[in-house]
């Protein structure tokens, strides 16, 4: 017999279900007040350095229907490309946000600071991006993706460079609507399917 691998196995995922808001965003479902302070209400506080931007979008299923029950979380660096917790990070940036699709329109809004480029382990820099994690009824394991920006230089980004089918790169790039305004639509399945990540 060979030696045993002393490894545990990750706990299997399960869908967050239709009532995920109860646990993660109590005020969304009129249960506000149960906690003194909810988690992830905004990724920035007053005084955050950098350009304040607003990203609107929706999460569409394979039929093109904007899901009304999706919940998203974002994680990002500050305007200088430093993650909260790292040395020199902007104290005005917590970097983490929870936001939900609107129950009527299906649209979400993320108001944050535009992140700076961040280093890559193998060297070089990654283009500015925001990491996203999407859960909902029907999604058995949270979907990871990224938001890049149309008005940044994305040409040397190592993750985007690995996407073989070049038209799919566009699915990760937020379109600029105006100053500080972007649109980022997520398509779970079918035509224009967003690139989802395993990293």
């Amino acid at each position, binding site marked *: 017999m060979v030696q045993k691998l*002393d*490894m*545990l*196995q*990750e*706990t*299997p*995922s*399960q*869908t*967050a*279900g*239709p*009532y995920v*808001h*109860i*646990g*993660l965003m109590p005020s969304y479902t009129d*249960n506000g007040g*149960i*906690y003194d302070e909810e*988690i992830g209400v905004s990724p920035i506080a007053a005084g955050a350095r950098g350009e304040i931007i607003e990203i609107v979008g929706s999460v569409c*299923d*394979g*039929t093109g229907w904007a*899901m009304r*029950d999706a919940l998203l*979380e974002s*994680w*990002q660096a500050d305007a200088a490309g430093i*993650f*909260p*917790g790292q040395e020199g990070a902007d104290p005005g940036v917590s*970097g*983490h946000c929870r936001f939900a699709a609107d*129950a009527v329109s299906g649209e979400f809004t993320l108001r944050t600071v535009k992140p700076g480029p*961040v*280093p*890559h*382990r*193998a*060297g070089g820099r990654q283009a500015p*991006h925001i*990491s996203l994690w999407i859960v*909902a*009824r*029907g*999604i*058995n*394991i*949270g979907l990871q993706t990224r938001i890049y920006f149309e008005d940044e230089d994305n040409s040397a980004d190592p993750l985007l460079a690995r*996407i073989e089918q070049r038209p799919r790169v566009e699915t990760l790039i937020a379109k600029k609507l105006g100053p500080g305004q972007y649109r980022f639509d997520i398509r*779970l*399945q079918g035509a224009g*399917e967003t*690139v*989802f*990540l*395993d*990293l």
Partner: protein
Amino acid sequence: MTDLGPLIPRNRAIHPVPYDPDYKTSVARSPNLPLLSMESGPSEETGPVFGHGRIGALDNNLILNWTKGAAPAVGERILMHGHVLDETARPVRNTLLEIWQANAGGRYRHKKDSYLAPLDPNFGGCGRTLTDENGYYQFLTVRPGAYPWPNRGNDWRPMHIHVSVYGHSFGQRLITQMYFEGDPLIAHCPIAHTIKSHGQLDRLVAPLDLAYSRPLDFLAYKFDIVLRGRRQTMFENKLEGM
């Protein structure tokens, strides 16, 4: 910041399949195309930190937190407890756990839940806590009821508590569900069976834990959680600027 090494790649074989026709909603909500795999970087290896200052004294007590201690929820009183470890068996300290659940009758306090079982005026259905220095956590709650859901003609969810956990990095983020030992509905649940390995599904079933039950007060169920670990090596490329 020291580079602790990349996250160990997720073993997707232990996880549910994204597309499962028996769980009807997954059919239009699962990607058709493969995921893009890559070694983790700082975006996945860092994550939010939640301090003790934000957690209220009753936040992990679902029996009392909805009424701020004024009146207890109705139902079978239980302690849900366990450890959060990573794949390398290290305790995951000071990490945020959040749970949510239906009340003892299987009804959620959510505007979209119209099940005819009544709300409990003394039960909200969510709680949160931080693990301690050993990765240990506890919640006091009532055992949730099973409930029907519109999937196939007569589908009922087993009793379950939803669990959300952070770990120390965004790439460890995990949501799962805890089931209860002996519940006959587990064998019939299309959501539970999106996990195709029975051995893996069993890992979501919490055993009755009489050792931690308090006589004349509550029963205990143990639910340990494992998050992704970090691959440590002396031969790592160091992250620039970290």
